[in-house]
């Protein structure tokens, strides 16, 4: 497996501009001869499809939802970072770059992160130009707020619906191109496999989820922007349909999968209420700007609160443990996500958790309301408070919110080089689906930035460069008549038939829940050698059981939610095993990956830069063969590796 990262020569700040200059260009008149497939219509996919079409390429875009406007980017609440330094508080491209590398616990590629920080300002300009109604100050200038892991105000926001507004911006740009006929949009279509011809990605096989039809689509390049794999945990903040299938199928076709064990557990979610629950709801991290996180110091007081015998408002100041402020005085409640989540888990492990399950901590606005007034707090977080009340029935203006960590984002993903090209030539990966920018932990308000950076400003260049390198004679050469398409299509159909004919007794959802339980317990917030080894065995057994005892009702000729879930769960089970192997291999703690064997005396993550400053990239070797590990060394020329301290 070739892991040449293709980082351009030259100083960090000149790499991207000199790389752009060195790229092959495609003459505008020739662009219409090429076609590009984009899978996914979120921030990365939607923006890439729109931008490539604007440039003149023929684009086909696929999404599993009934409209591209529903991709899960829409659910991001808090904001998007950019190094505009509009607040004159010392921000710069270099600071955003540094914060992101440090926030990622020194496990991201320097050159990619620098480029991300560099184009961040262009993203804000672009979004404002296409009508995103960002929050403004009375003087008409853009407003900013601060976010976890940063000490400057660089986050732009549109109330608590920033992701929605950014996605609708990209969707409107995409819609324009659909209306012009430059993008052919395929709604309710799910990618089920990748087709390679002579080693290059040349198309995909999809299933129309409304009619059941399986069809072939050929192109000169393929872009996957299919999101993350958080639903491997069953319960996560992801949408119900989010899945790893497209990425995992590509992995099985030869694309390296990097750092799958880097998963982010978000500290501010609404606690679990029961076993029928289907998803966890995130409360924006921006709440931590004004809310104070605490549990009772005393486990007995916590027990009384759990039983409903003590009103949390009556707990005296001295009996409260504001544990983040205590442990991390300089960042306090704004400590990064991984650190905040683990601190909450520790408090609950000590029996000091609240909520009916004991798995919760308070996020209290009492002091903020006293200081700024209820109206100000309402102005800032009104919709989040309403959402909380809608779900829990509690009024957070009067009684403290309860929160608990939940799986939210996955930093790992398909390995890509500086061009966002995977180990399969011609297959590019953008957004959460790739592994590139966040290292072992993502900072708040950085996902939207990365999705749009990939979609608007990087893929349109690098895909064009690839097409230029292939030459205009190659454009459109491979069609769906090529035997490779027939072969992959037959595999896809056989797999669908298999699901429907196993004839067992257990539903896909039931398998999914069992899978999620194993992963959450053994590959969640704290991981151990013993636990992971057990999990790998359990997952292998679960896989066997799945393929012999699955029951899928209905048929393949139309909408069948059971069939859809079966396919996704089948891939999640295999992927979960890869995650555990990756976590087992990484004998250190970094970012979202915490190995109990590797911690300092006071329980902080202990990195091992000497042995693990690399991206772990897995090569698929067969269903019952162990995958092969490759390493991309991470070389830090501009940032000095240091122990991440938020104290």
């Amino acid at each position, binding site marked *: 497996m070739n892991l040449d990262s293709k980082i351009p020569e030259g100083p960090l700040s000149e790499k991207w501009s000199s790389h752009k200059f060195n790229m092959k260009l495609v003459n505008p008149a020739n662009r219409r001869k090429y076609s590009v497939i984009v899978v996914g219509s979120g921030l990365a996919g939607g923006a890439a499809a729109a931008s490539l079409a604007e440039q003149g390429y023929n684009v086909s875009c696929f999404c599993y939802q009934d409209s591209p406007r529903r991709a899960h980017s829409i*659910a991001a609440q808090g904001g998007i970072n950019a190094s505009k330094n509009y607040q004159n508080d010392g921000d710069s491209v270099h600071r955003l770059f540094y914060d992101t590398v440090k926030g990622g616990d020194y496990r991201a590629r320097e050159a990619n992160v620098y480029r991300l920080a560099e184009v961040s300002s262009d993203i804000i300009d672009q979004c404002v130009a296409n009508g995103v109604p960002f929050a403004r100050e009375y003087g008409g200038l853009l407003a900013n707020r601060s976010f976890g892991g940063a000490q400057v105000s660089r986050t732009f926001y549109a109330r608590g619906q920033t992701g929605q507004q950014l996605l609708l911006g990209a969707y409107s740009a995409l819609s324009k191109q659909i209306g012009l006929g430059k993008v052919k949009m395929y709604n309710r279509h799910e990618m089920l496999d990748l087709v390679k011809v002579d080693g290059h990605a040349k198309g995909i096989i999809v299933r129309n989820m409304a009619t059941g039809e399986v069809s072939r689509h050929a192109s000169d390049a393929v872009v996957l922007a299919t999101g993350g794999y958080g639903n491997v945990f069953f319960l996560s903040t992801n949408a119900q349909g989010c899945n790893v299938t497209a990425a995992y199928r590509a992995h099985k076709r030869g694309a390296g999968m990097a750092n799958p064990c880097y998963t982010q557990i978000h500290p501010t979610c609404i606690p679990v209420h029961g076993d*029928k629950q289907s998803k966890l709801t995130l409360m924006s991290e921006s709440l931590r700007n004004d809310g104070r996180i605490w549990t009772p110091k005393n486990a007995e007081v916590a027990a009384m609160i759990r039983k409903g015998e003590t009103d949390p408002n009556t707990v005296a100041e001295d009996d409260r443990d504001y544990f983040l402020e205590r442990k991390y005085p300089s960042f306090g409640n704004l400590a990064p996500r991984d650190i905040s989540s683990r601190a909450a888990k520790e408090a609950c492990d000590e029996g000091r958790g609240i909520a009916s399950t004991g798995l919760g901590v308070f996020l209290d606005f009492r002091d903020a309301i006293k200081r700024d007034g209820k109206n100000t707090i309402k102005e800032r977080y009104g919709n989040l408070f309403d959402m909380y009340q809608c779900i829990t029935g509690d009024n957070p203006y009067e009684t403290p919110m309860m929160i608990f960590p939940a799986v939210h984002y996955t930093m790992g993903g398909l390995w890509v080089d500086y061009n966002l090209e995977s180990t399969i030539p011609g297959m590019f990966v953008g957004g959460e689906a790739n592994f590139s920018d966040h290292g072992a932990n993502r900072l708040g308000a950085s996902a939207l930035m990365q999705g749009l950076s990939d979609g608007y400003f990087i893929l349109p260049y690098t895909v064009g460069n690839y097409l230029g390198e292939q030459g205009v004679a190659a454009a459109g050469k491979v069609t769906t008549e090529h035997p490779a398409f027939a072969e992959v299509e037959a595999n896809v159909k056989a797999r669908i038939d298999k699901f429907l004919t196993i004839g067992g007794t257990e539903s896909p959802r039931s398998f999914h829940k069992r899978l999620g339980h194993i992963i959450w317990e053994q590959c969640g917030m704290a991981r151990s050698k013993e636990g992971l080894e057990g999990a790998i065995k359990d997952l292998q057994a679960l896989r066997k059981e799945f393929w012999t005892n699955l*029951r899928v009702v209905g048929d393949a000729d139309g909408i069948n939610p059971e069939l859809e879930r079966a396919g996704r769960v089948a891939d999640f089970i295999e992927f979960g095993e890869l995650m555990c192997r990756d976590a087992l291999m990484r004998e250190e703690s970094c970012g979202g990956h915490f190995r109990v064997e590797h911690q300092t005396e006071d329980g902080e993550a202990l990195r091992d830069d000497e042995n693990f400053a690399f991206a772990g990239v897995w090569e698929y070797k067969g269903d019952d063969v162990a995958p092969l590990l490759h390493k991309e060394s991470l070389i830090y020329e501009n940032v000095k590796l240091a122990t991440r301290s938020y104290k």
Partner: protein
Amino acid sequence: MEKTMDLTLKVWRQKSANSMGAFETYAVKDVSEGSSFLEMLDTLSEDLVEKGKEPVAFDHDCREGICGSCSMTINGIPHGPEKATTACQLHMRHFHDGQTITIEPWRAKPFPVIKDLVVDRSPLDRIIQSGGFITSRAGSAVDANAIPISKATADYAMDAAACIGCGACVAACPNASAMLFTGAKVSHMNSLPQGKVEKDRRTLAMVTTMDGEGFGGCTNIGECEAACPKSISLDMIAHLNRDYATAQVKNFFKPVA
């Protein structure tokens, strides 16, 4: 422990667009009041699968009230009885033990049923495709602070842009009008300085597409605003009417393209 309830569900079942549909009656037991309406439907689905029957098909995705996928009429009201709440954010504590709940798909001619509770809402996408955008090629934008926008204007645009495109307004309207949906997008874009260049063209194109898709006209009934899970105001329809009239007059004297 959370309280639970037993319910009777009358659910619209329809095999495909061309087949006849009918209500089926199901019993669901031990629904916890903290679960969401869709989690209650998940329970029904698992029960049906257990019996070897096909679960109810319905659109859903984010389950946090923002993607706009869920689209079901509950006891005659799109998204159910709670104000400003999508079906996925509707919680069972608003129902009571022994209650009968009727669940059907959006009923509107432009939204044909695909299966059970799933309808085809692509006409809404086509309205946007015809003009619901502000042209700005990637890379062509000026600095974001170059055009100051008053807070009042930005807030108004945001109020309009909060639409999630679920189509409840259409389902609630006796005329199956899409004026609230279209009005919200027109109001959002036409009120911003960067959207003014294409204002007239946008307004005319979106209304033409809307009419062509078979949506009815607006007769100021107001059911749309009442059903809207994001409380989009009827003012957006007034804004659309105003901009449409202006655009038509201008177009009469000098075609806007």
